[in-house]
């Protein structure tokens, strides 16, 4: 097992980030055009007011329990552990949430905020479609108009989710600019928001974007880590030795990690998409192979060329196919609290097949990256040690992608 990197940052007070202007160390902030400043100020003021409001929290907790089906189980994957050899592997079953992924935790929270603003129109960007589905779902429940921006490339890769969104009453708007993936969908959503800022609430799906989004997405997703911590103590009688989660924008990872940051004995691993391999440059792993820059309203690690142009990323998983990452992850990398590693397409595919076969649990291709890394990590650890893997979503949406790789037409 790798040495615990947290031991040299005892002085860090994690409750003090971000600062008042949304900075996580040098990262985060608010890099947007002037028109949006007002809307962000308004959102921040609303969030500050509601964050500690017992009524708001009670409504959020109620929705998570009654609508999402929380708490999600912390499942001991006994057969997977045995087959892998090494540390005990537990899965935090976010795949069992309503709509099949962790994304709903955040959309429930942001939709409650939207309700308080009185805005009747919701927009969102989506990559794999899970955030789009989760947004369309809460919009349907609250009777709000919903428009989801999605790259043309992703619409092709994730046709099932596109249809789900349509059934839920959302309009899916194909984005044909740039690389036609998540980053371009986010650009288009920001353009829409600038234009319709008076009547529109933008539900960002990951812990990136301009302040206060990284903070509020983290807070809404932290239910994952709070539950996992409590469940670990109750079911196993101790804290886990390691946490593993995939990182695209990084919302499921920050949600799992954040409540454990002060637990110095808990090592953390964020798993980026290694695509065809870090050495090929065709991947989506800015924390492993990028440099800090400014995109989508925040400063963070990015994949870019020598002229500062954002480059096209590659991952088999649409949800990880993003050239940036949430700013808090950039900071956690720099201070050494979290290790950021990468898993290639092939390794993720193998993990997808393996977990499906040995546990009867089909992970999303995004989550498969975490599953693959956890197998490597477990083998380096002792059998009395314990790893929690965030199974951030279910793999049903990826069946067509997997079938295509197998040369099968479903």
């Amino acid at each position, binding site marked *: 097992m790798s040495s615990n990197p947290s031991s040299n940052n005892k002085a860090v007070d994690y409750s003090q980030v971000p600062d008042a202007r949304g900075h996580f160390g040098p990262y985060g902030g608010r890099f947007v055009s002037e*028109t949006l*400043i*007002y809307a962000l100020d308004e959102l921040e003021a609303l969030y500050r007011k509601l964050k500690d409001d017992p009524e708001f929290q009670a409504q959020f907790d109620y929705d998570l329990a009654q609508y999402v089906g929380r708490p999600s189980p912390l499942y001991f994957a006994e057969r997977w552990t045995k087959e892998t050899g090494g540390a005990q592997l537990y899965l935090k079953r976010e795949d069992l949430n309503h709509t099949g992924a962790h994304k709903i935790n955040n959309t429930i929270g942001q939709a409650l905020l939207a309700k308080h603003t009185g805005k009747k129109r919701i927009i969102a960007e989506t990559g794999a479609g899970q955030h789009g589905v989760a947004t369309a779902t809460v919009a349907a429940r609250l009777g709000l108009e919903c428009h989801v921006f999605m790259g043309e490339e992703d619409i092709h890769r994730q046709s099932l989710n596109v249809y789900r969104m349509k059934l839920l009453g959302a309009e899916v708007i194909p984005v044909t600019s740039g690389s036609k993936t998540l980053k371009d969908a986010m650009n288009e959503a920001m353009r829409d928001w600038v234009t319709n800022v008076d009547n529109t609430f933008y539900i960002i799906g990951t812990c990136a974007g301009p302040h206060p989004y990284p903070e509020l997405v983290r807070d809404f997703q932290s239910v994952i880590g709070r539950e996992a911590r409590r469940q670990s103590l109750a079911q196993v009688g101790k804290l886990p030795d390691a946490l593993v989660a995939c990182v695209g924008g990084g919302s499921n990872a920050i949600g799992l990690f954040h409540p454990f940051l002060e637990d110095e004995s808990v090592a953390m691993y964020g798993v980026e998409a290694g695509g065809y391999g870090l050495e090929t440059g065709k991947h989506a792993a800015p924390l492993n192979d990028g440099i800090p820059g400014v995109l989508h309203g925040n400063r963070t690690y990015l994949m870019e060329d020598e*002229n500062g142009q954002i*480059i096209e990323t590659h991952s088999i998983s649409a949800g990880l196919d993003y050239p940036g990452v949430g700013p808090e992850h950039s900071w956690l990398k720099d201070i050494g609290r979290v290790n950021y590693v990468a898993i290639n397409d092939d390794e993720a595919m193998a993990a997808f097949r393996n977990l499906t076969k040995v546990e009867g649990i089909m992970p999303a291709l995004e989550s498969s990256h975490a599953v693959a890394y956890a197998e490597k990590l477990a083998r380096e650890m002792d059998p009395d040690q314990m790893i929690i893997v965030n199974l951030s979503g279910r793999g049903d949406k990826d069946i067509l992608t997997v079938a295509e790789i197998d040369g099968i037409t479903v």
Partner: protein
Amino acid sequence: MSRIKQRFESLRQQGRKALVSYVVMGDPAKDVTLPVMHALVASGTDIIELGIPFSDPNAEGPVIQKAHERALAHGSSLRDALAQVKQFRETDSDTPVLLMGYTNPIERMGYDSFIEKAVDAGVDAVLTVDLPPEEAEEFSEHLKQANMENIFLLAPTSSPSRQKKVTDMAGGFIYYVSLKGVTGAGNLDVNSVNENVTSIRSLTDLPVCVGFGIKDGASARAVADLSDGVVVGSVLVNQIAALAEQGETNPAIYAAAVSVIIAEIREALDK
């Protein structure tokens, strides 16, 4: 006195309004930009605003987005924009040139390196769309030391306190965005422009130019009456796009086409 101050001072003395013209560096080819810049000046432009190509120009509407894509397709970059301004200065030492772009290409070059090259090229001012005052302190300090102006946007959604914060840091002129939306968007609300420009003027002595949504002589005239000048972009870029789509490669044709548009707007402004 800076070129921008000089220009507004002489316009004021002549009782004329400023015409700021925007094109994207390298759209649709690198050799088109210099002849176009000179043609913009010859047909009546007072200040040139040169767009720095960026992969993710998320404040732009479809017209200017495509201009960025055309420029990036053959690798135009911030370096080329700086080189182009330097060349422009060989025969035009009077017309102010403002670089407009996004933060990341400038940060990638590094503030120090960028400023050094920009000063050497003869750039007068910079407008970074996604660098509001809260994040611009360091960059502003760099610009100030080099006697370059930092141009900021104000929007219909900017509160009076916000207007104050922005005007306190701004130099050159205030770029008032006439509508909620991206570049090239719809309808101009003259009453709202009037109200906001009046409010901004009560806070600063800087000239106020109005952009976004100005399509022709008539719309230019309407907002110029309320302000110190207008910014036109999408209408020029649209014309460049039309020629590019026809496969036009002769830079002189592009220069002639933008001249026609600017001449019409100039005439309306001077009436």
